[in-house]
């Protein structure tokens, strides 16, 4: 079954619980120079008197035609056939950063200690064993979820219907 990460921005408060859970799950130590895979933040735009806030939690989007995978010169990145996640085996990674330049979401990161690139693997081993990814499991507001492709399509249809309804009601 292919999975999709979904962020409901209306529920997210950018509390960073997801980012901390990810660091814990993946032994990421920012103080030792590791770069966290997931980041949560608030984007504030518009006039000061009437600001618009967007709450976000961003990690690898596990794109269908993942550009990082195409760009990797040593074939370290692959699609996991079971989950659809973009996973990696960085044994042969040369740290060239081609994957980073290919990613529109600034996700692959370089580990100075190993000299290799790393990224979110969707907690693929947890998911294969029927568990939620760490970031999803810990989210206190249910903003992050992992859904199947068909559930995602249904969500999109419902969302589109909602938007049309709001527009009519407006």
């Amino acid at each position, binding site marked *: 079954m292919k999975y999709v990460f979904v962020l409901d921005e209306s529920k997210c408060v950018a509390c960073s619980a997801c980012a901390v859970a990810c660091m814990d799950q993946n032994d990421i130590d920012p103080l030792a120079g590791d*770069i966290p895979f997931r*980041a949560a*933040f*608030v*984007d*504030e*735009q*518009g*006039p*000061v008197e009437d*600001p*618009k806030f*967007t709450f*976000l939690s*961003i990690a690898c989007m596990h794109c269908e035609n993942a*550009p990082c995978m*195409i*760009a*990797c*010169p*040593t*074939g370290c990145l692959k699609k996991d056939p079971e989950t659809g996640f973009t996973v990696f085996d960085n*044994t*042969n990674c*040369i*740290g*060239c*950063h*081609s994957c*980073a*330049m*290919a*990613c*529109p*979401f*600034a*996700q692959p*990161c*370089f580990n100075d200690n190993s000299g290799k690139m790393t990224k979110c693997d969707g907690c693929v081993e947890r998911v294969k064993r029927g568990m939620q990814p760490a970031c999803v499991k810990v989210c206190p507001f249910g903003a992050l979820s992992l859904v199947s492709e068909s559930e995602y399509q249904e969500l999109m249809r419902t969302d589109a219907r909602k938007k049309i309804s709001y527009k009519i009601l407006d």
Partner: protein
Amino acid sequence: MRKFAIIGFGCAGYNGAKSLREHAPNVVIDVFDPSRRSPFNPMLSTYHAAGKLPYDAVFPFGSLEEICRALDLNYFSENVLEVTADRTIRTESDLYRNYDGILLATGADAMVPGSLRCSGNRWFTMRTLDDALALRQHLDTNQVRSAAVVGGSMVGIKVAELLHSEGVNVTIVDAASHLFPLAAYESTARFIQRQLENKGLGFRFDAKVTAIDEDGIAFADGSALQADLVCLCIGTRAGTRSFRNSSVQIGHAVVVNSHMETSVPGIYAAGDCCEGINLQTGKTAVIGLWANAAMQGACAGANMAGDHADCPGNILHNITRFFDMDFISLGDITLPGCKHLFDCPEFFVSLVMDGNTLQSVNVVGNYRVSGILKHHLVKQLTGGASTTFTPAQRGLLERNGLPREFIQLIGGSPNDRA
């Protein structure tokens, strides 16, 4: 049963074969390549020569046998000498075959002007696996104290890094006035040069090499540079020799449209032997990059099978890491505009804007912003979607060190708060 030929089996040839097989499971696919090797990435040559990547790892798609079995390919290890407009090929064993479609994917060779060829065994190029093996063997069996690397671009800098790491005294020589002449603004190049000088590298610019001999290299101004080893890294030349009589339009390389089809119907080209569309100029140009070759090959393979795939083009872009430094170049640095700089102790971003349009970017020391900036530049050119950053992109750029004012300058909307 329809029959197709793929001439050359690097990244573009492999992806062409894979895509063709996916779109047309029952066709015959003949592959012609004299190397008897699995597709090899030229970029990996310096890594292999430096001992950073074992032999098996330089073939990212697996062994030749595995690939031929998985994609059901007939592999002919010989050169194609001629391709004609009626889609007939002639090989060096005088095999004549006619095909329903042909993909030209012969890649490019290291450029070596005739005047610089010499008979000695102390000069090298760096493009193929054999080049990597030859340099490695030479370093392992000879005492090399000094080296001249001719060409101060992406390959040259990696060769210089490799030689420097083995204790060789390296001088980089270039006919241009500074490093990375096609990718770096002069100010960026001078900054990088200073960093490398601090590590002990020597440089000689505006220096036209006229000869390479056993003592080193000779320059047009009559001077010379002694070197135990010379590595020529002055670019590549598209491998188009066997297509010269085919009627396909050839400029610096085989000219293709956005479907990767040449001027001759049924003959396609992909990878470093072809000129795809440069999105910034609208003209065709060689953009010799691994991912570009993969996308072009996949597009050509799909179209050969009868699909209608499109490869709209690309921009010049490069990312390279050398001497623990990251250098990123996006876009055509010769395009006009107003230059802006954000400089902080950890990194700098220098870019050229023409009004609200981003033209080109140089980044040193911050690879994490490269993907967002590259996609922004491409999005500007391919139109359709908004050309302002999304909240996610804005936030990620900010988290990776770019100040709001600078982000707004590049891709802000009128409602953004700086």
